[in-house]
């Protein structure tokens, strides 16, 4: 850098823009924590959200000039708490009777009076705060709430996604999503859905919807037809973040580790699974584009699960993906191992979609004819991937006309653009009588995992 070089650009304004990205980062990272803590302290989700929103509004005003505080999370939580007390004083006359009672009780509670230093100490001590987030996940995923509501609430309250972002990701108008969230929060309050981690015998059953929600968020991000690619990546990242959180908080639940491993191993292939808007099959992917760090982490988790030897659907799907990740190229895939894992998966989670994926593995070992016979017994005519799989078997058997017919059926049922792009290309190949390479798995979703093949 020389003094006489004329500056091509005006100097970066110090402060403001930097601080705003910093606040956005803190928001995404700390929103869920802050809402979880405040929900415990205030006993009301809406009041907690309002308070945390106030705190971030204040951060936007103050941090650019005053600088980011040493513990942004501590600052946000303390400020939100103070704002809740102010709001209570200001709006006491207008508040709903019940809410006022809970807030008054909270205002008197020692938790609301803890000084900022103590909040920061609490935050740095793993435990209390993370427990709050875990409580909040179980509240959001309570079986008394509909599945789509569970997903939306989790993204809103723990992920800090805006209502508009969630509405966009799930293809519903923003007002519809806003109404759903309002109704769900009213139900939590009025029906007194508890803010608590279920324990003992209740935990495994109550964990199911929590894992399902996280996996749904991941799949929505991974295979969604609709949203722009930015939102999709964000959803996957959010699901993995929640998965890591759950794995850290519930280290004794093997399915939690299994789900995290499944997501990491699937995510590791993101860079290789699409080319020019069309899906690239697992067999055709450039494996140099796979994320080795994610694979290593996922495989380590799978090994942990194997040692524990309490297999469940997520762990088995993760193990299947781990076998794929092990193969240097498609030809090196250990299909025998994959078939064994599908047999196990069928035992713990029987269903036609798992059976269809098993048929794909069988075709690699015993050829397309027996696999086609198996697939035809599954009664999956309404599922686009069933037709895609059949089409592939037929093409490999040299029955090009039938294969073209099956690809048309698949195309007719497929909703997602990348799937359609893929199927259209296959249909063209089939019409040209191109039998395709024998190892190319026909399932467009390229994950070998059962229910997620999409």
């Amino acid at each position, binding site marked *: 850098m020389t003094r006489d070089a004329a500056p091509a650009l005006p100097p970066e304004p110090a402060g403001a823009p930097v601080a705003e990205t910093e606040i956005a980062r803190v928001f995404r990272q700390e929103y869920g924590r802050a809402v979880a803590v405040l929900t415990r302290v205030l006993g009301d989700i809406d009041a907690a959200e309002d308070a945390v929103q106030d705190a971030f509004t204040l951060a936007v005003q103050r941090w650019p000039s005053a600088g980011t505080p040493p513990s942004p999370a501590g600052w946000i939580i303390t400020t939100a708490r103070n704002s809740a007390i102010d709001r209570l004083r200001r709006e006491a006359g207008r508040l709903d009777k019940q809410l006022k009672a809970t807030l008054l009780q909270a205002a008197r509670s020692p938790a609301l009076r803890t000084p900022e230093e103590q909040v920061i100490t609490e935050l740095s001590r793993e435990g209390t705060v993370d427990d709050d987030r875990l409580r909040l996940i179980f509240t959001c995923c*309570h079986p*008394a709430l509909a599945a789509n509501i569970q997903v939306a609430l989790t993204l809103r309250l723990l992920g800090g996604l805006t209502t508009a972002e969630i509405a966009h990701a799930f293809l519903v108008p923003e007002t519809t999503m806003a109404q759903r969230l309002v109704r769900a929060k009213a139900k939590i309050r*009025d*029906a*007194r859905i*508890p803010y608590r981690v279920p324990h003992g015998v209740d935990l495994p059953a109550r964990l199911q919807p929590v894992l399902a929600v996280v996996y749904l968020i991941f799949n929505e991000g991974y295979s969604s037809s609709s949203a722009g690619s930015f939102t999709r990546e964000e959803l996957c990242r959010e699901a993995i973040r929640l998965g890591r959180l759950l794995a850290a908080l519930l280290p004794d639940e093997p399915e939690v580790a299994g789900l995290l491993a499944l997501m990491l191993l699937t995510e590791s292939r993101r860079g290789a699974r699409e080319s020019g808007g069309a899906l690239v099959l697992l067999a055709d992917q450039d494996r140099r584009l796979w994320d080795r760090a994610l694979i290593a982490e996922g495989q380590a988790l799978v090994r942990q699960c194997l040692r524990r030897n309490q297999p469940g659907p997520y762990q088995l799907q993760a193990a299947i993906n781990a076998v794929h990740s092990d193969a240097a190229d498609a030809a090196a895939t250990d299909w025998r191992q994959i078939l064994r894992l599908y047999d196990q998966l069928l035992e713990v989670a029987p269903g036609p979609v798992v059976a269809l994926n098993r048929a794909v593995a069988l075709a690699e070992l015993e050829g397309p004819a027996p696999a086609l016979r198996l697939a035809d017994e599954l009664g999956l005519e309404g599922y686009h991937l069933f037709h895609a799989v059949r089409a592939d078997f037929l093409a490999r058997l040299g029955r090009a006309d039938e294969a073209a017919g099956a690809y048309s059926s698949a195309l007719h049922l497929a909703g997602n653009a990348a799937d359609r792009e893929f199927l259209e290309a296959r249909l063209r190949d089939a019409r040209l009588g191109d039998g395709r390479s024998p190892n190319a798995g026909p399932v467009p979703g390229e994950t070998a995992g059962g229910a997620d093949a999409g």
Partner: protein
Amino acid sequence: MAQYLLSVYQPVGPAPAPEILEPIMQDLEALNREMKAAGVWVFAAGLHPTDTATVVRQQGTGVLITDGPFAETKEHLGGFTVIEAEDLDAALGWAGKLSRATTLPIEVRPVQH
């Protein structure tokens, strides 16, 4: 503490045969005793069939009286229990017991207070 209405929904039609109904009634009585012992029981009642129902609605300055239930449905409210419980999970626990005793679906609704 909050109160919850546990509504028992049963299909329209004749009551089950005594040999089926008898053990159900015994289970129900046992559950009522259990609820009372646990201090959650507030009130419970079984209802006569819907063909004993009458609907009254305000019309102009008077009321209109009509025969029959408010809504013609395949399932109707056959009885209910009001309980006092700490939260929804506790209420759902009791509802599960009520569902097992009656062999019927139970709707759980919080009472406004």
